[in-house]
């Protein structure tokens, strides 16, 4: 098992190194950093001085080394746009995005599992077919269209939910939460629902196919033969066994959800990392773009590692070696 873990760790380090290299290339070669940063009327002498100050006169490998070292220390540079530490900017936006993703995940699990079970227990019933059709429409509608429609219905026409932003937030140390205030919770509803739709469909389909698999397996057939009550078979035996992969996929999906939040956050002016990133893109704020890339890369690697470790612990077949 240790060998498996070490291999995974090595791979993770490799991925992070690659991501860092991409971030570095972006930072260093996309446009001339000096011309981006210098004032419009800067003289050639000033620019040359800047070049030295930025270390751009050193060999590329040295520059990369320094860049990587800074990244490891959590120093992600300063945003071109508002001259603040990028690490601080990201830390400030992290709670908004994580809360949005968390609530969206709750919604998709809370609705996706029951709907999946319903359509698995009676795959040819009208309810199941309806769920299937709606889910197909769901994944075929772009997030931004869904978001605009929800705003139009619930904020503009019915005026019962806020159309943008986070509402009031409460500061818990460095973490700002919108989960503890009424307006914060109300503000969460539309963006979280919008973000959850894609994952909801995914979870529902997964639960359905896993359930059907389990229900047709031998041990369920034996259980039926033994005359166990059907609700016990369906929910205690079948669902429990079908949920393991669902949990895994949900975990793995969190990273995608954070990236997908870019669109949702843009539509709802949600002050999270996605909005930070999209504004960095339109301002060509390279340090922020690079940092966001590094952060999401790190998150993915961490989540994948965690899932692998859990699997290794749970699955005896992977426990090889001493």
């Amino acid at each position, binding site marked *: 098992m240790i060998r498996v873990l070490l291999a995974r760790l090595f791979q993770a380090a490799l991925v992070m190194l690659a991501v860092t290299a991409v971030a570095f290339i972006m930072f260093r070669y996309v446009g001339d950093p000096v011309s981006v*940063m*210098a*004032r*419009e*009327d800067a003289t050639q002498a*000033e620019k040359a001085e*800047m070049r030295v*100050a*930025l270390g751009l006169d050193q060999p590329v490998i040295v520059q990369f080394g320094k860049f990587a070292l800074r990244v490891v220390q959590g120093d992600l*540079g*300063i945003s*071109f*746009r*508002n*001259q*603040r*530490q990028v690490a601080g*900017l990201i830390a*400030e936006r992290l709670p*908004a995005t994580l809360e949005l993703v968390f609530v969206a995940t709750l919604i998709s699990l809370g609705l996706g599992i029951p709907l999946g079970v319903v359509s698995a227990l009676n795959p040819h019933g009208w309810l199941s077919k309806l769920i299937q059709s709606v889910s197909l429409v769901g994944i075929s509608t772009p997030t931004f269209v869904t978001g*605009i429609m929800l*705003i*139009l219905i619930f*904020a*503009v026409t019915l*005026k019962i939910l*806020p*159309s*943008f*932003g*986070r509402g009031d937030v409460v500061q818990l140390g460095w973490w700002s939460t919108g989960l503890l205030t009424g307006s914060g919770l109300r503000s969460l509803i539309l963006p979280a629902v919008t973000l959850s739709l894609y994952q909801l469909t995914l979870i529902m389909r997964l639960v359905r196919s896993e359930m059907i698999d389990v229900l047709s397996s031998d041990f369920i057939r034996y259980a039926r033969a033994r005359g166990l009550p059907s609700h016990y078979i369906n929910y205690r035996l079948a669902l429990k066994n079908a949920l393991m992969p669902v949990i895994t996929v949900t975990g793995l999906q969190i990273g995608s959800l954070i990236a997908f939040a870019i669109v949702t956050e*843009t*539509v*709802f*002016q949600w*002050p999270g990392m996605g*909005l*930070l990133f999209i*504004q960095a893109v*339109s*301002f*060509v704020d390279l340090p922020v773009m690079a940092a966001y890339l590094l952060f999401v890369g790190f998150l993915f690697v961490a989540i994948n590692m965690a899932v692998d470790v859990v699997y290794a612990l749970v699955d005896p077949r992977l426990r090889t070696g001493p």
Partner: protein
Amino acid sequence: MFGQSGLKPRQCVRAAGLAASLGAGLLLASAIGASATTLRWSSQGDIATMDPYAHTESFTSNMHHHIYDPLVRRGRDLQIQPGLATAWRIVEPNRWRFTLRQGVKFHNGNGFTADDVVASITRLLHPDARARGNLSNVERAEKVDDFTVDFVLKGAYPLLLNDLSGIFIMNKAWLEANNAVTPGNTTRNLTTFASTNANGTGPFKLESYQPDNRTVMTVNQAWWDKAEHNITRIEFRPIKSDATRVAALLSGEIDMMAPAPLQDLARISGADGFKVIEEPSLRLIFLGLNSREQLLGDPGKPNPMKDKRVRQALWHAIDLSTIQSRIMRGKSRTVGTMVAPPIPGYSADLDKPLAFDAARTKALLTEAGYPNGFKTRLDCSNDRYIADEQTCVAIAAMWTRAGIQVELKTQSRATYFPLVDKGETDVYILGWATLPPMDGYSVLSALLHSREGTFGGNNPNGLSDPRLDDLTKKASTELDEPKRRALMTEALRIVREEAYFIPLHQQPVAWAMKRNVDVPVFADEYVRLWFAQVK
């Protein structure tokens, strides 16, 4: 428009001031009491930084003005009036002496003195300060005594007050205590306390600043001036999308939006409990033209736009009145010159566009040797001016119909303006409001003079006319106002005659708010909430 809020409001100000001082005790008591009045408002952009010297954006300056005060400021009539300085005189042509206001306190309780002015100007003129170009004619500031400061200039300069109206004064002790004496700098990987915190003398104090989310200010009860507003708290929330911003206003989440999108004005003013206020802006939109040897859109051939007839043909081919009625929804004013009526240098005689005339376009192009048109690029921003992208698409369509092959490219301001600045455009859209000086000279020095030294900073495409250079230099040192204005008008006359630029329209300022909110609208597009009344 501008004239409407001309002299009368000034009297109003006095009257209001009187009333305020009469009932000051009572009002103060009630303001501190239960009636906390919050104004929640939204705009499309956000504050770039809290450091007044680390940016060159007019919106950010506007926001800072609520927290910081300049030495001289613009009143309700947009005329210059005393701010932190109470009086000034020219000691020598290059030395101005300012008497400072006494008894002013910064938000942290520190007293305001000449040291603060000297420290601020030194910080602003530091090579790392992005905004140092805003005071390019000043050499340094010198303390005379605690409440007297001298400004030493590089030469005679008539517009010092205009420049100073945009320069905010910071607190020396606070800067020193927080290690922010020099401005932040991206190159040195340096960010200062002052880019996220603020300590001014202004009507409001900064309570919290969360970029892209919310900035909260609370009233400064100890402000040196009599408050003409009745709000105790400002909540600013940026919303980029027009549609979302309108939705937020209509659903009651914000009290005011500035600007309000033109396409939604009818709907907002038709809705119960909302109103729209409008005024012509000082900002004029025009097209700049490439004056170099070749066009980027058709390299290898001589530039047709060097021919005056071609430039005029391009102008004649634009149906300005349809753009005005359809895209600007009747809210703009078509123009023929480069400055708005209230600006020194303006002349009504010049303010007539060339008529939309397809036959004339054809004739002029034929005369110039381009009967079948030519190829050119048209570059535009899509998030800077009102309906900029739509205007450019419409112009591209009109020129195409006139036989000119146009390649239109629209992009975000962040990538658009560097492109324009490098001169990598043939025809480009530009808006100019002559801010902060509010003077025609800013057009002459930045746009019309050939690019050399501090001149022609926004003349990237090789426009060079000795007559314009000469008039600019004369106007820069002319201290006799009527003569100075005549010089500027003459320059604008040449520009129109030669069609060096194609003026399109004067933008409207349109804000929308709840009926119980009263905020005066200003032609310079500044939101001045120290004049806001919420009933």
